[in-house]
């Protein structure tokens, strides 16, 4: 065993210490945001159904929508929706064979992250000040 070269061999990524590339991080985030959006849609559909159920039902749903819980769920949903939308647009580029080089995929990942935060802030500004 003495002559075995232990320092110079290619290793498969060790998952606990492997730093995921940004393209992998944003890919996983796309799946998470897509599924998490169910919370926002349930809140809004409950609110719409309550509006045709009666005044008490609407008062309860509207209170939740306008409370800090509703603010967190809906702002989170707005960010998730923008993120998922931008990532979906990138998928259309991927499917047409573009943005697949490592540097391009890395840059597109940052564009999705920064773009989703900027669009969420713009949405909030539009909501509170327009």
């Amino acid at each position, binding site marked *: 065993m003495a002559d075995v070269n232990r320092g110079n061999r290619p290793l498969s990524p060790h998952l606990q210490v492997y730093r995921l590339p940004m393209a992998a991080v944003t890919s996983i985030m796309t799946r998470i945001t897509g599924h998490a959006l169910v919370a926002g849609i349930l809140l809004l559909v409950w609110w719409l159904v309550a509006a045709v159920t009666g*005044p008490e039902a609407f008062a309860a749903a509207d209170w939740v929508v306008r409370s800090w819980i509703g603010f967190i769920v809906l702002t989170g949903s707005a960010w998730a929706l923008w993120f998922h939308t931008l990532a979906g647009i990138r998928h259309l580029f991927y499917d047409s064979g573009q943005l697949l080089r490592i540097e391009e995929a890395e840059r597109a990942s940052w564009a999705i992250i920064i773009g989703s935060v900027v669009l969420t802030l713009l949405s909030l500004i539009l909501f509170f000040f327009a």
Partner: protein
Amino acid sequence: MRYITPRKAAMGLGSAHSGTADHWFLTVSSCALVLLVPAFMLVIGNAIGMSHPELVAYFGRPYPALITALFIVVGMVHFIKGTRIMIDDYFQHTARKVAIIVSVVFSWAVIAAAVFALAKMTLVTVAI
């Protein structure tokens, strides 16, 4: 070497038996959703904060009602196909079948609830 001929590999539309239909549906619906997402967010942003009668009248109007209905129908069917990819990745055997059934039934229940609410708000507005 491959033991099956190219013709045999293409027959029956592959192991999913539906070929690339799901992927193509996600592509088409994602293009629709790129337009529907900002429109839906504007509609909801306008609606939050309204009184009960204002809200019913607002969703009784054609554009808020149609944009909301289209977003929820297209979005939830997109959701069914999206969860299907996740289910196929993480679940096997009976758990996979149960997860697919739960996902489809849940999504159509959400669509039914939203369409009912929007239809009723439109009818109430017409009655006024």
